[in-house]
């Protein structure tokens, strides 16, 4: 798994690529926690490059969503791949996230 971060004035976009499962979820969690610690609580996760998303990865998304909402921010999803989208739907977690078809729309939503 690889992550790439782009910081905008009000929003931070994290692009996630590859497999997010039990072996890589910890890395994603650490990357997102660092952003939170830096006071960045308006987050967009670009999931277009995600090839596999297991419940371990979903756990990180939900944990981060809870954390940013506590500080008045939000975690929104941009252009999830079919595989990421299926995993989120199968886990019944689609109702928790605002999802946008492209990252520009997700960034503009804040």
């Amino acid at each position, binding site marked *: 798994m690889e992550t790439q971060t782009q910081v905008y004035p009000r929003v931070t976009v994290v692009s996630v690529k590859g497999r997010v499962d*039990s072996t890589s979820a910890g890395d994603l969690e650490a990357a997102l926690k660092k952003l939170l610690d830096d006071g960045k609580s308006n987050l967009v996760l670009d999931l277009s490059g995600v090839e*596999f998303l297991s419940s371990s990865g979903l756990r990180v998304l939900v944990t981060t969503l809870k954390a940013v909402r506590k500080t008045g921010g939000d975690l929104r999803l941009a252009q999830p791949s079919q*595989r990421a989208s*299926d995993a989120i739907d*199968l*886990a019944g*977690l689609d109702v928790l996230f605002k999802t946008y078809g492209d990252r520009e729309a997700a960034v503009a939503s804040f």
Partner: protein
Amino acid sequence: MKVRSGGASLTGVCDYVAAAASASGFDDRTSHACQLAVFEAVENIFQHGYRGDGGEIHLTAQSAPGALTVEIVDRAPAFDPTRYPVDPSASLREAQVGGRGLLMIRRVMDDISYERRGRQNILRLTKNRSFTGV
């Protein structure tokens, strides 16, 4: 195939299921759903059955045109995932994501059966329809 806990071995589970799903003639989306279901089942066994303390799991896939069955055998304490209650609803206050793996397995697979034979848990996951979404 034989699976031990650890990164490379778990990725191998997906490759193994992908090859079997391809032999059954399933499309990429259905193949991915099957990979996810089997992966979640295997992870559950390592995390909750063997309690993160190693252990070994045997996978056997049977492919026929339009049908795939994966048998998952382990020696962890008895656990019947077909009888475990799963709540499909999610609210942010309550969502702990625990049990989400089981929900994913049930939503993907068309038939799930469990048997305890001696000291073995035997879980059979069957897919015989294309996956087109939840």
